[in-house]
């Protein structure tokens, strides 16, 4: 970055890639505190059932859950597009619960992008600044700046209907960022894109967020996306927050069966008897190290080792291969132990991959066992 640009940044609190990142983070990022948020639609539909949540300044925070869990309602309350029935919302130390959306320093990237069809790309990008009453010269300067930052290139001079899905997504992002909001909200912004473009834009979005140090609140139903992007994740279900934590916490130590299943775990077993760290389930008795005191045992498929034939030992289970899905980099197995099934994922490192019908020994590491409540 050139020195002139850095100098210029000092008296322009604009979105500039050249800005000193620490400085920017302290200036732009806002924290969010939600307390007791309730929202009901009609008589029977409870969208939010008392949500308390703190989002830290400069954090990439994800609201994760199935459709109807309340994540979108929560995002819309943050945007001001929905008013909570009860509870309070504080953004950057200011109570904004009843502030209408056009007076909140919060901008949204909509799922459908919502680019104005009657305006050019440049006019779309300048819309928020124009509504705030910024003079044309300053608007243009800021639009050029953001176009360079998001690497829009010559897209700025196109018409909206000439853009592809990925391009629209980036314009929608730029249109929100150019307003330099305290908080940026993203409502499943990547869900309409194909897989390749999606992972490319995930990386781009992360890069943008880290460089601006802005608080991002991201909504998705895709747990992989949530894990890739987020500093922290809140998992929602039925209008309630189930768990808040870093991606590794949520994936490796889910607090309950809902979170575990939503994060893609199938190997959940009821604990029928417990003697110290010896846990008995339908699979047999396993030794756990620091498993907690939940009533369900979670075994992550990727922590298992498979040995050919029957091998005796502690935490060794004898199983039959019922199904094998070869995926190149790894293989997924459905194993049967008596009437109970167990999923195992094995990396393909030139080892023997058991065939269907083969008898194998499953090695369970005690330190990878976790218990959780229903």
């Amino acid at each position: 970055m050139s020195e002139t640009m850095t100098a210029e940044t000092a008296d322009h609190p604009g979105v500039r890639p050249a800005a000193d990142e620490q400085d920017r983070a302290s200036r732009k990022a806002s924290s969010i505190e939600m307390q007791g948020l309730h929202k009901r639609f009609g008589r029977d539909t409870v969208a939010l059932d008392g949500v308390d949540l703190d989002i830290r300044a400069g954090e990439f925070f994800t609201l994760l859950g199935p459709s109807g869990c309340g994540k979108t309602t929560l995002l819309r309350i943050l945007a001001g597009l929905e008013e909570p029935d009860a509870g309070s919302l504080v953004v950057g130390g200011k109570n904004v619960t009843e502030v209408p959306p056009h007076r909140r320093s919060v901008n949204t990237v909509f799922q459908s992008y919502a680019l104005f069809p009657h305006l050019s790309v440049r006019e779309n990008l300048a819309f928020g600044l124009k509504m705030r009453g910024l003079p044309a010269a300053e608007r243009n300067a800021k639009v050029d700046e953001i176009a360079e930052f998001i690497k829009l290139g010559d897209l700025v001079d196109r018409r909206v209907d000439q853009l592809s899905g990925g391009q629209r997504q980036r314009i929608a992002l730029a249109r929100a960022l150019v307003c330099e909001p305290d908080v940026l909200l993203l409502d499943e912004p990547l869900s309409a894109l194909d897989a390749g473009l999606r992972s490319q834009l995930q990386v781009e979005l992360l890069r943008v967020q880290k460089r601006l140090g802005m608080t991002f609140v991201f909504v998705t139903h895709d747990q992989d996306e949530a894990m890739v992007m987020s500093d922290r994740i809140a998992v929602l279900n039925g209008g309630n927050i189930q768990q808040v934590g870093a991606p590794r916490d949520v994936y490796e130590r889910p607090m309950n069966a809902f979170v575990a299943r939503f994060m893609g775990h199938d190997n959940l077993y009821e604990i029928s008897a417990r003697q110290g760290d010896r846990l008995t389930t339908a699979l047999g008795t396993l030794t756990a190290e620091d498993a907690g005191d939940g009533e369900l045992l979670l075994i992550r498929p990727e922590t298992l080792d498979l040995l050919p034939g029957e091998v005796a030992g502690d935490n060794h289970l004898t199983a039959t291969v019922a199904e094998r899905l070869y995926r190149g980099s790894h293989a997924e197995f459905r194993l049967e132990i008596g009437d109970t099934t167990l999923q195992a994922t094995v990396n393909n490192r030139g080892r023997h991959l058991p065939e269907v019908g083969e008898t194998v020994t499953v090695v369970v590491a005690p330190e990878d066992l976790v218990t959780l409540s229903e």
Partner: protein
Amino acid sequence: MRKRTLHRGLTAFWWLTLAFLYLPLAVVVLYSFNSANSSAHFVDFSLRWYHRLLGNEEILSAFGNSLVLAITSSVIALVVGCVFGYGMYRHRHRKLGWLIVLIYLPIVLPDIVFGISEMAFFVQIHDWTGLLQPGLSTMIIAHVTFQIPFVALIVYSRFVGLDPTLFEAAKDLYATPVKRVVHFMLPTIKPALISAFFLSFTLSVDDFVISFFTAGPESATLPIYIWGAIKKGVSPEINAIAALMIAAVAIAAILSLAFSRRRPT
């Protein structure tokens, strides 16, 4: 083979239908250029009937009335219908479906019923208040009433075709309610508004029945003039007026269609 025969048959049918629709109009246009005073024998090409029109005070006044009536009523209907159409859009999810039926009703109601009702209504008001003497003002009110449903429906369908999150995006991007109207809603529905204006315009120019019942002695429009003149027999002068009206209405209708097709994605 059979498929081709069928195709040819359908093509022939298509041309026949068009001929059926347009031949009468063509005859009127043709004889408006006839040099002889006849609607039976075409003698020679001439513009004499058009020249005659320009010298006829009554026709010029009727033309002026038609134009003032069409433009004034269309502008009023545009404003009122636009607000109404937006209201229908905003409340489409509530149990107000019957409102939409109510707005369709004037469209399907026979003009004669409409005309008589308007007349009776204006007479009543005039008896009570002394206002609304039959004339251009009553005609404008009557025309506005039948134009509003068309405008409202065009505006409504334009709004329904929009991504609803656009309204939220405008709020999100700091647009106050007034700015949302000026910088988002009006520009977005502009093609629909222009289309609705030209449609209202043609409806007004076309209308005879409702105008007839609400007109005063001084406010004859072209259709009313034609109706009066025709009692003395069809003169080539009438053909010339008809040809001009066909041209005017066709242009307005084509403009209306062109703007209704122009919808940004």
